């Protein structure tokens, strides 16, 4: 089980990578969304938002109406943000659960992939 601080630290690293990636800036053009993250093991909620191709800070709590809801363990979220976990594999195994449009899911997965692989 990851602590809130660990998760926030991992997110901060991922956010820096995403916002520094020019290719992701192109990919996220026009994709302004609110994403809720729900940790299934600790029962906590977080909110992240993308506006103007920029990934905002992680807010504690479920703020606003989400376009996409991602549910996973705090461990998986933390590993995902550090780039130590393949979210697609976890998704296909049912360990990451999504609720939202397929287009939004693709963009989020693109963020997790391009930030580390730049494919």
């Amino acid at each position: 089980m990851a602590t809130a601080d660990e998760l926030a630290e991992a997110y901060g690293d991922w956010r820096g990578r995403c916002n520094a990636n020019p290719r992701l800036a192109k990919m996220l053009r026009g994709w302004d969304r609110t994403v809720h993250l729900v940790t299934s093991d600790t029962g906590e909620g977080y909110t992240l938002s993308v506006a103007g191709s920029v990934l905002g800070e992680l807010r504690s709590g479920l703020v606003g109406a989400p376009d996409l809801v991602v549910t996973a363990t705090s461990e998986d979220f933390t590993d995902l943000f550090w780039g130590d976990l393949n979210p697609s594999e976890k998704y296909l195994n049912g360990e990451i659960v999504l609720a939202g449009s397929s287009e939004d899911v693709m963009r989020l997965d693109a963020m997790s992939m391009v930030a580390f692989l730049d494919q």
Partner: protein
Amino acid sequence: MGLRTAVSTSTGLAFAALQYLAAAGLVAYVAGDSAWISIGVAGLLALLAWGFFGELNGMFPTAAAIRRYMGQAMDDRVALSITFTYLTTIVLVVAADAFIVGAALTHVLHVPAGLTTLWTLVLLGLAVGSNLRGVKVAGWVQDVATTLVLTVTAVVSVVALARSGTPLHTPLQPFHHRSGTDFVESVALGIFLYSAFEWVTTNAEEVRDPRHIHRAMFLAVCILFAVCAVMTTAMSHLLDHGQLTSPYPQLPLGERAFGGTGVWLMTAITAITAVNTFNGGFVTASRFLYATAREGSLPPVLARLNDRAVPWVPVVALGVASFSVAVVVEVVGGSEWQVLVAMGAALEAMIYAVAAFCVLRLRGRLADHHRPFRVPLVRVLAVLGIVVFGFLGVVASVSVSNRFDPVPLVIILVLGAASGVYTVRVVPRLRAAELERRAAVRPRRRPPSGGRGPGTDAVAGPGPAP
């Protein structure tokens, strides 16, 4: 996504332009004026399949459901092989729709037949281009398009029947000048008229209420029965053999209802069905290939994204594969599209049988799993599903134009064998190479921390490489 859009998605995915040819083929070769009875029996069987998919979708409400439930119910390699083979249905339907719309345009414009290839290329090029640009048909557009297609098809059929002025010949005699084998073949073909209604389960994460998917599939099967029944009755009563065996039987049906205007009307409707098919087919198949490549079961090149976050390699590959199949059908000529119908019917029956098997197997393996919907009398109905759909799949795969023809079966076996060999020989190597490469070049980034629980230091899955 609300219930209305879920219904239109389920119905729209099933009602491709190929359905007109499948319905006409059913009338021409096996069922005659009583075709609607075969369609009704096939519809009841589709409702059986609805029960299976309903239970499985309730257990795994995700776009990746087919991987989840098949992976849980059987060996993962077998599951992957079946899934790859099943995916070819999408290529077949997209190819057939492009060809049918192209052939219809050639017919109404009175231009040389060779131009059909050009129309097909243009249509698939537009579909690939719009997909690469990330254009997706909005839910309300899909609602309107599907409603228009089904309503116009039903109205044209009813008006054409009303204007004929003659009563039906044998509407209640499915065995009139037919054998029991003919009837079984017509039911097997009838399965194809409902094929792909279950693809809406890939939208499980988009619906406002999880129950919408289950209800939508049921309503879609009912709507498809009503429209296909009236359409085949009209075709049977009004079209001659040459018209029924042409690549555009819906056009003369339109002519019988509204004259020249009806021909153009049905041409437009045929083109609209292609929009639904291309939209659903390309998005569903390309995203599945992308996710499977991300998982490590397909070459990594299939996970490459363009600047609009679209997996461009799968989209282009699907376009090329569909165009190739369409050209082969056109070059071979005659009524070879009936091979596509037979293959589609056989693959659909196969996946229904697999769904029945998964339901039965998971009742034992995942007995405590939450099931919002449960198939009643599961031991009886699931075994019935496996036997009936398995049998109909075999019948469909060796029946082309009411004669024995093993070509569809041979193609399916070749595709299945290729998928099997790929899964057994190539996938393990792909996964091992990826793990090795990542382990070699990519140390774990997450810093060690005392706050983490025991047993969490190992990387849970192959992480992305730098």
